[in-house]
């Protein structure tokens, strides 16, 4: 019987190990032809900003969706909204505001269409040799509010923060051709907004002194990206609608301090809500607690 050449076998295995260590860790293959999904997080932010800027310019939502799908976000709307908040928090320059506005507008447009963006990363080239990212001819749009993070109806109706979204039937709609460009939903400085509602909210489940603002356009659709100016004696602050899309695209809130009287208006022009202060509410058991205020603005 032939003797097993253990020495040669061990040398082969040792060589294999050395080769793998070199190929995987010391000098891995140089990366070329990568896909956007593999980009570092900050470059993905740049990529999303560019997509939002292009969408803002063209209004082509299908193309924006196809491009967003390349980034592999599990929820593109959430990713866009989170990025907008990071942009607003990190830089207060006008350019940053403008770019954040575009990102919010794209998130809002996606939300309004209640679209789940396909997460699969296309790797094949289309027949006409157009890059995957701009090939929108065969995009399948899945309308699935049941699994969507945000309810489809949030842009249509005002909702209470404690309300549970209704589940509705799932529907799949194949889009045969690139849809016609739609107008980008960007708030414009139109007619001054009317203050159509001002009410005290006595809900012990909400934070004390919660000031809720809802902004609607003339078609009763909630409007994201509206700048709100709140002032008080010795101070002022800005905040925006649309940064909590789970509560509605036109929703914004602010926590009021006790014993401070606030005045609030929309930066683009609106009625002024003045004398805002934390209301005192009473629970069924007779205990007093701090309530909140809900303001509703609407474009005439």
């Amino acid at each position, binding site marked *: 019987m032939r003797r097993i050449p253990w020495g040669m076998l061990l040398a082969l295995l040792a060589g294999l190990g050395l080769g793998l260590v070199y190929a995987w860790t010391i000098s891995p293959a140089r990366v070329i*032809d*990568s896909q956007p999904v593999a980009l570092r997080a900050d*470059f993905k932010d740049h990529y999303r900003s560019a997509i939002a800027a*292009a969408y803002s310019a063209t209004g082509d939502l299908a193309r924006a969706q196809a491009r967003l799908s390349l980034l592999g976000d599990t929820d593109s709307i959430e990713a866009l909204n989170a990025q907008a908040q990071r942009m607003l928090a990190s830089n207060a320059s006008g350019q940053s505001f403008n770019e954040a506005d575009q990102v919010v507008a794209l998130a809002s447009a996606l939300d309004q269409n209640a679209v789940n963006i396909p997460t699969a990363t296309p790797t094949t080239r289309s027949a006409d040799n157009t890059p995957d*990212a701009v090939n929108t001819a065969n995009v399948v749009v899945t309308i699935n509010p049941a699994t969507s993070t945000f309810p489809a109806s949030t842009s249509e109706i005002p909702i209470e923060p404690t309300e549970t979204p209704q589940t509705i039937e799932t529907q799949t709609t194949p889009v045969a051709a690139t849809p016609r460009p739609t107008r980008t939903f960007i708030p414009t400085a139109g007619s001054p907004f009317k203050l159509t509602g001002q009410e005290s909210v006595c809900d012990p489940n909400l934070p004390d002194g919660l000031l809720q603002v809802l902004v609607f356009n003339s078609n009763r659709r909630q409007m994201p990206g509206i700048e709100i100016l709140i002032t008080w004696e010795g101070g002022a602050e800005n905040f925006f609608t649309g940064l909590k899309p789970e509560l509605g695209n036109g929703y914004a809130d602010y926590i009021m301090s006790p014993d401070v009287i606030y005045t609030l208006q929309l930066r683009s022009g609106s009625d002024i809500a003045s004398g805002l202060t934390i209301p005192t509410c009473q629970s069924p058991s007779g205990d007093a607690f701090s309530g909140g205020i809900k303001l509703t603005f609407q474009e005439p």
Partner: protein
Amino acid sequence: MSRFLKIIIPLALGIVLGLLYGWVIDPADFFDLTPDTLRADYKADYVLMTAEAYRAQPDPGLAARRLAIFGSQSPSAIAADGLAYARTNGFDDADVALIQELVTAMQAWSGIP
């Protein structure tokens, strides 16, 4: 065969097999990459996005800043690469025209505000 060769030859063969497997068959997974590694069609599409945005907001500084994520090349060179790809790969005429507009703007842009 000498005892020395009996060790060296299998060792070298193992190294070759290891490199083949690690570089070709199952290369290391990459993430956190920079945009300069993107495939040419993705780069061209990014240039197109920048061109679309530039058409609506003709700010060459902003467009150059967007293109700068590709690294060491000048913005005009990056845009020109995108244009070349678009022309040779059947992009719509309208898209090619947009990129052409961006290339012209980047070539004219000095970078000095």
